[in-house]
Structure formats: C-alpha cells, structure tokens
C-alpha cells in the first residue's frame, strides 16, 4: 500500500480524471467527510476520464484498479474499499 494518504490518492485521481483541473471545494469536502455520499455517476466521467482515474490510482498505490472494476463501484466508498482490500483474493 502506498504511504500517501488515501484521500490524497483520490484527490489526485479526480484531478487526473478532470485532465488537470482540481476538484471543486464541495467535492473535496465530501471526500473528507463522506465518500459514501459521492455517487460516481454524478461525476460524469467519460471513458477517457475513467482510464485516467484508474491510471492515477495505480501509479500512486500499485493497486490495479481497472475501468472494469470502477464500473462495479457505485460510490467513492466502494473505490476506497477496493483499494484497501487489494490484493483481492479472487484476482
């Protein structure tokens, strides 16, 4: 697991998914207080943004979160759970 705090990993991934634009203050606040409230659908990632998000997570953590995995996640809390459970036993 990466020494980088998970919240920083997710912030960086969200920035990558927005092609370098940092997430707005409301989203950062939500990330800190309740990732379960962040519905991935609401982030309106296109397919390229999904790939950038996953690449960023892998670069910072070594966790091989793929677009297929991300599709199974409904909220940011699901993403956190996936990262924390890595390596998954069924991989």
């Amino acid at each position, binding site marked *: 697991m990466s020494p980088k705090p998970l919240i920083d990993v997710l912030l960086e991934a969200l920035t990558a998914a*927005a*092609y370098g634009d940092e997430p707005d203050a409301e989203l950062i606040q939500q990330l800190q207080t309740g990732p379960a409230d962040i519905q991935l659908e609401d982030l*309106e990632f296109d397919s390229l943004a999904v790939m*950038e998000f*996953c*690449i960023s997570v892998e670069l910072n953590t070594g966790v*091989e979160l*793929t*677009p297929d995995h991300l599709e199974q996640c409904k909220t940011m809390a699901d993403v956190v759970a996936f990262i924390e459970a890595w390596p998954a036993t069924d991989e």
Partner: protein
Amino acid sequence: MIEDYLNATRELKTRNQFNRVHIDLSRVMTPLQCAELIAAQRKGLLSEHARGWVQVFLNLAPGIEASPEPWVAEPVTESITLHHHGNAECEQHRKGLLIAFCGNSDLMGVPLPVFLQALPARDWNVLHILRHGRKRGAPRVDIAQAINELLDELRAQIARHQPSYLACVGMSSGGGMAMMVALRLEAQRCVSIGGAVFESWLDRLPELSGGRLPLRQVRDFSLPEYVFVYSEGSEIDKRQAEIAQLLFKGHGMPIPGVRSHNCVHPIARRGLLRETLFSLLGGFTAEPAVIQSDPGASGQVHG
C-alpha cells in the same frame, strides 16, 4: 512506428500501463500510423491489451485501414503540430488552413487519427493545438497574454501557408479559444463544438477580442461565419451555444439524439464524421494551383 510501439510496451504488464501509452498515442498518431498498428494487430504482433484500443479506430473510422488519409505530422512548437499532405504536389494546391483547438483532454472528441481521417489531406493543412497552445504543465498565464502569443505563432503559419480559406474549430474548452482566435484572425469560418465563452472572459471582451467585441461597436473587419454545435440533450451546452450566438452571431446546430457533452464521438460512431465536418467547414475543397512560370505561356495546372 510499430517497432517504437513494441519497444514502449514490451515491459508493460497491467491494463493501466497499456492505457497510459494508448491514450498518449491517441493524441499524436496519424491515420497512416494507425493503419500500421491495425495491420500489426491482425498479424498478432500486439498484446491482448491493444485489441480493444485498435477496435476503437476500426469502429470510428472504418476506412482508416484500407485507405488512410496521408497526413504527415510536423512539430511546430511543443503544443502545436502541423499536419499536411505527404505528397509535395498536393501542397501546391490552394488549400485551406484549419486551426483545431483541443479540449482539456487534448482531443477533438475522438482520437486524433479518427479526426484526421475525416478530413481530406488534399484540401487542408491542419494546425492541431494542444492545451490551448500552452506547454503541458506550464504555469497558467493571463489569457490575454496567452491569446496574443498564440496569435503571433498562428500569423507566422498563415504567412507560410497562404491559405485560400481559413477556419478554426474548437472542442469543448477549445471552443472559446477558437471563437476568439477566429475573430482576431478574421477567419472565414469558426466551428465551436460544445464550446463556451468562459465567464471570466466576459468582463474583458474588448481586450481579448482586440476591440472587436461587443460586435455592435466595430464594423470594419470581416466577421467569421460562426457555427455553434452542441448535443441536443445537453441543456448546459445549449445555453452556452446561445450565449456564444449573442456575442458572435452565427447559428446553433444541435446534434440530435445526443446527451453527452462530447457529440463528436457519437457522430463518428454513426459513420457521419467526414460528411459532418465537410458540411460544418462550409463544403470547402482545395483548387489545383495555377503555376505561371513563363509569362508567355498559359498557366500550368497541377493535380
């Protein structure tokens, strides 16, 4: 090209590692290079991870395998690339110059080879602009300064190519740049696709437009024909197109049956990108050049 790709991917293991390479290549490849990749995939030379990526090109630009447009890339600056016809004789034609501003993703809504395949290389030279002309990772500069620096480079390119037709096209955030640059360069046409005039620009319109905005104040310049393309199902993009129309005149063009911000990808998926771009760019085709080398003889027509 294939050797470079194989060298770049030989040590890669994960899907994300391959995706990184594929995304970066999608921003710079030409249709000819893409056709090479497809051929290599058919020969089984590429990794399993490349299969889906190659299929994207076949889906969005079916002709790219059999008859790739012969674009050749020539770097101009770190963020500007000139694409021109590989055949010198075609360069003699009275061609159009298309200045293409990518969106934040550094794409025109589709991978670059798909976009270029939809443009006839015999008719156009293309200046493909990443990051709105800024170097990747460079600190943000004042927008007026950025536009002025970009205009200097573009004017040099226009002087070099002497286009018979000048057009700007911009995708998403590149749409605003296209609108303003087209106005400053007095292009014949400007196509904004899901583009917007940034709110922060509204207080600085006279400065950013070189005194041409608001339009009612100035009449002594040639106004480009503006087309504002947007997804019919996107209220935000429709509103932005309406705001742009108020500023630049021109007309809106909704793309039916599309809700997503990126309406270029659905157009390509429907197999309509080439004819749509042709129409959006005013139906321009290059004329063969008339070379008058001997004043006593009649002109010689090339092409």
